[in-house]
C-alpha cells in the first residue's frame, strides 16, 4: 500500500471531549492524516461492541475510541466502562483472526486539539504498519445495515 492510499479508520468520539477536540483541531488548522472518519457519540459508555464489529465487517482498517480523561466523564464512569469494552473487543478480534491493535481507546479533554491530532497520527501510522484490513469488502458487497434492512 502506498503512502497516499487512504485508510479507513473510524473514530467513535464522545461529544463532550474528543468530538469537540476534533472540532477545535479543525479550527486551529492542525494537520492530521485524512484516514479518520469521526462518529459522534453521546459518551464512550454508549459504545456498543456490535458497532465496532460492524465497522470492521464493513471494511474498516481500524477503530479508535476517544473519551474523556479519567475522572472527567460527563456521566461519571462511561469512559471507564468503554475502556473495559475495548479490551473485550480486542479479545474478540484476536479470536476472529484480526490484529487486536486495530482497535484502541484514547482519553482527552475538549481543549486537547493537539492530542486528538497526535492520536489520529499515531493510529494512522499503526494501521499503516499492519496494512489494510483483510476484510475490506468489494464495492458491491452489502453493508451490515443494508443486510439488516433486507432481513
Amino acid at each position, binding site marked *: 500500500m502506498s503512502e497516499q492510499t487512504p485508510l479507513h479508520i473510524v473514530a467513535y468520539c464522545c461529544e463532550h471531549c474528543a468530538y469537540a477536540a476534533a472540532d477545535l483541531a479543525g479550527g486551529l488548522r492542525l494537520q492530521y492524516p485524512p484516514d479518520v472518519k469521526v462518529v459522534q457519540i453521546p459518551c464512550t459508555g454508549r459504545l*456498543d*461492541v*456490535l458497532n465496532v*464489529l*460492524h465497522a*470492521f*465487517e464493513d471494511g474498516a482498517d481500524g477503530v479508535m475510541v476517544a473519551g474523556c480523561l479519567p475522572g472527567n466523564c460527563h456521566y461519571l464512569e462511561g469512559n471507564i466502562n468503554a475502556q473495559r469494552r475495548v479490551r473485550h473487543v480486542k479479545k*474478540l478480534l484476536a*479470536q*476472529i*483472526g*484480526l490484529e487486536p491493535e486495530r482497535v484502541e481507546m484514547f482519553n482527552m479533554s475538549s481543549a486537547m486539539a493537539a492530542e486528538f491530532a497526535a492520536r489520529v497520527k499515531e493510529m494512522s501510522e499503526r494501521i499503516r504498519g499492519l496494512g489494510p484490513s*483483510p*476484510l475490506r469488502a468489494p464495492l458491491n458487497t452489502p453493508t*451490515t445495515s443494508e443486510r439488516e434492512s433486507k*432481513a
Partner: protein
Amino acid sequence: MIVAEQKPLQEIKSLLGDAQKVLVVGCGTCVTVCFAGGAREAAIVASSLRMASKLDGDPKEVSDVTVQRQCEWEYLDEIREQVAQADVILSLGCGVGVQAIAEHFPEKWVVPGLNTKFMGLPLEQGVWAERCAACGDCILGLTGGICPIARCSKSLLNGPCGGSEGGHCEINPEVPCAWQLIYDRLSSMGKLDVLLEIQPPKNWSTARDGGPRKIVREDLRLAVEEG
C-alpha cells in the same frame, strides 16, 4: 436464572464444520439477562463468524434471530422458515434450548454455542454465582434461606466441616463457607436452635441421582391430550 457463558469462537467454528448457511438462534430469557445468548450476543457471534470464516477463506452465510424462549415449542414455530433455509443451527440457548430445537426440528443439525453453567443470580453487573442445585427436595426452610447443597462444596446437611477457615471454604479462599453463612444468619435472627436438630441423610433420588426427572400436573393437562 440459568447462567451460561459463550464457548470460544474456535470451538464454535469446529462445531459448525463445513456448513455454509448458519442460523444463530438467541434466546430472550435467562441467557439474555446473563449476557450470554440474547439478541445482542447472537448478532455479535454472527458478525464474528462472518468475519472469521471470510478470513479463513471459506465465507459462510451467517444470520441471526432471537426467540422469546427457546425452551417452548410455540416460540420455535416462529422461526421454522429460517431454520429450514439453514444448514446448521447454532443455538445460543441453554442446554434446554439446544435440545428443544433438536426435538422440534428433528431433520436439522443443531450445535451449542454456550456452556450452561448453573442456576444462580447476579451479585453485581458482570458477576454471577450459583444458588440452586435443583436437588428436588428443598431444605432452605431448615437453613435460614441459604442452600448448603448448592453452596457448600461437600453439600453437607450438618456442617460445617473441618475445612471451614475464617468463614471460607478450604477449596478456595474466595468461596464463602455456606455453613458459616447459615450459622451467622441463624445467629443474627436468634434461631440457632434450628441447628440442634441433626438432619438425616438426604434422599438424593429426587435429584439427578434418581435419573431424568419429569413433572406431570393432571390439573393443568388439556382434555385433548388425555388418553
